[in-house]
């Protein structure tokens, strides 16, 4: 039994078919590789073939995915037939800094927890707040309010068997100057942390030191690389900066950037981490190639350190 279970973050956008039985005929219609990225059957088979037995879903998938399958249970069963389980789901804790919005934030978050339970997942990896642009800088009270509401969400989630993982991102209002304060204001019994290695490095943190310090809070990882850690404030705080006008990428496959993943895996070994590690390759032009590159790096560079 391995300590690490690998999952893959679903950035495929909408996949409009459950299963294409007339694959060759479909391919010949216009003879492009689009045919290879159009049904869930093949996407899940790619995952299984590359050793990603989990899939992490994103809420922007659901408006097409749920009508396509009919229910979360139907998707869960479909994935299970191909050897894949739902590990978790992404979520946004919307407007947590505003106590007048807390009731709605809690209701929306409860729905997300319930939906994840229907999918059979356990990790609700949650952006703790909206973007810095338009919201930041936060007052101390706004940081406190944000910590309060995610703790309430965490209580509900814990009752349902779900772990809330704070998923910080380099352009959010919880940012370099306040994210440790925010984390420490949350209740460790109910609120955990999903360490997105690239996002937290872009924020300006040393991910090894951060993990070593907060290892007892970190329940899962988004494993991805970056070539540009410690971005300056004027970039992190700018408008709609995740997708850059000139095509600059913030995120790369593990091993294609500059982060010390071997050092991180030494720490995983030190702290005997057990749980889901989700490879996330947002921004790639070719998710299948990125998935394969990541698997090669894990098998050949990281597994021998800790697996």
């Amino acid at each position, binding site marked *: 039994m391995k300590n690490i279970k690998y999952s893959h973050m679903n950035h*495929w*956008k*909408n*996949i*409009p*078919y*459950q299963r*294409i*039985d*007339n*694959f060759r005929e*479909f391919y010949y*219609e*216009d003879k*492009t*590789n*689009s045919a290879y*990225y*159009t*049904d869930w059957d093949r996407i899940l088979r790619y995952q299984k073939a590359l050793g990603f037995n989990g899939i992490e879903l994103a809420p*922007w998938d*659901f*408006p*097409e995915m749920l*009508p*396509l399958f*009919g229910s979360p249970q139907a998707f869960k069963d479909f994935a299970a037939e191909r050897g894949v389980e739902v590990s978790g789901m992404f979520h946004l804790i919307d407007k947590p800094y505003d106590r007048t919005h807390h009731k709605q934030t809690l209701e929306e978050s409860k729905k997300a927890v319930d939906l994840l339970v229907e999918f059979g997942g356990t990790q609700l990896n949650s952006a703790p707040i909206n*973007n810095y642009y338009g919201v930041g800088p936060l007052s101390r009270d706004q940081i406190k309010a944000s910590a309060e509401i995610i703790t309430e969400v965490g209580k509900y989630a814990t009752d349902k068997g779900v772990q809330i993982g704070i998923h910080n991102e380099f352009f959010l209002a919880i940012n370099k100057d306040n994210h440790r304060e925010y984390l420490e204001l949350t209740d460790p019994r109910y609120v955990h942390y999903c360490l997105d290695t690239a996002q937290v490095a872009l924020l300006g943190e040393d991910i090894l030191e951060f993990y070593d310090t907060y290892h007892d809070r970190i329940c899962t990882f988004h494993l991805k690389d970056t070539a540009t850690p410690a971005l300056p404030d004027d970039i992190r705080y700018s*408008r*709609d*900066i*995740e*997708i*850059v*006008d*000139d*095509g600059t990428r913030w995120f790369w496959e593990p091993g294609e950037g500059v982060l010390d993943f071997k050092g991180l895996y030494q720490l995983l070994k030190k702290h005997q981490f057990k749980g889901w590690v989700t490879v996330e390759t947002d*921004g*790639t*032009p*070719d*998710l299948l190639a990125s998935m394969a590159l990541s698997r090669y790096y894990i098998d050949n560079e990281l597994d021998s350190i800790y697996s």
Partner: protein
Amino acid sequence: MKIGISLDMVNVHHQEPNRNRYESKYYWDELYPMIATAGFRAVEIPFDPFWIFRGGSGVPFTKYCIEVKFETVAKFVAHLQANGIEKVAGIHFNPTIFMRNENLDFYFGASGYFGGEAIRYAAELGCDYIAITPTPPYGLVQHYHGQNWEADFTKRSIEMINGFAKIAQEKGIKISLRNEYWSVFRNQNFYAELDNSILLNVDAANLCIAGQNPSETLKNSLGKIGNVYLTDTSFTDENEAWKMPLPEYPQHRATQVFKDVGLGKVDLSGFCQTLKEINYDGWAIVSNRQTREPMRALLRSRQFLNGIR
């Protein structure tokens, strides 16, 4: 007849290799002069609120996106003109994005709000028309609302569209109402209940799939045509895919429902001949909404148009 091409050829919602570039401004900056190079001087732009909510303002499909990247709508129009696109002929508003839960008040509230925004934006762009998809796919509404929703849904949809007509009249812009083969309105005679100012869109491929003759529809709609779409298909809906939640992706047999123009079986030459015969002087928009390659679709479209002129 004036010819334009729709930016719906850029498939921003579904997976394909390299689709990530569609979310960055550089892709579009490269595309605009290519459109002109392919001989198109006017475009139709989809209005897609999806790109307001997730920081994807590189996709030029809302006023918000335009203001983030170009500061003002006027500067965006000037940018297009500097790249050979002389006019935004129209925009297309489709409320399907808001059919995502069991709450019809949410659907009509959001659709009504953003539909109004779309009309005001179209006017600011200097468009001649706004094409409006009147309903989400029949099967998608059914997925969320089960049974006995059609009468109330139709009534509220007509009220919403008539509300759009008032805004459009204030802004001096025409509404061109679409009727996709999967529409809730597909088999309903609702025109008598619509405001007289509302014109009809004539979409060649959608009509063919619904079993109607596009050229006959043109002749029967004289004086009521808001704009037309030059669209192509080889699809015949023998398994009633139109009733499915994702009707443009028939689950029983995968196919590219909307082919690149010229590659399907629609008699587009005859359709264009009819447009000439009825002295149609409005916009004919080329749409390749399910193309696998936008640049290839551009050139295929130009080749086809050159062949029928």
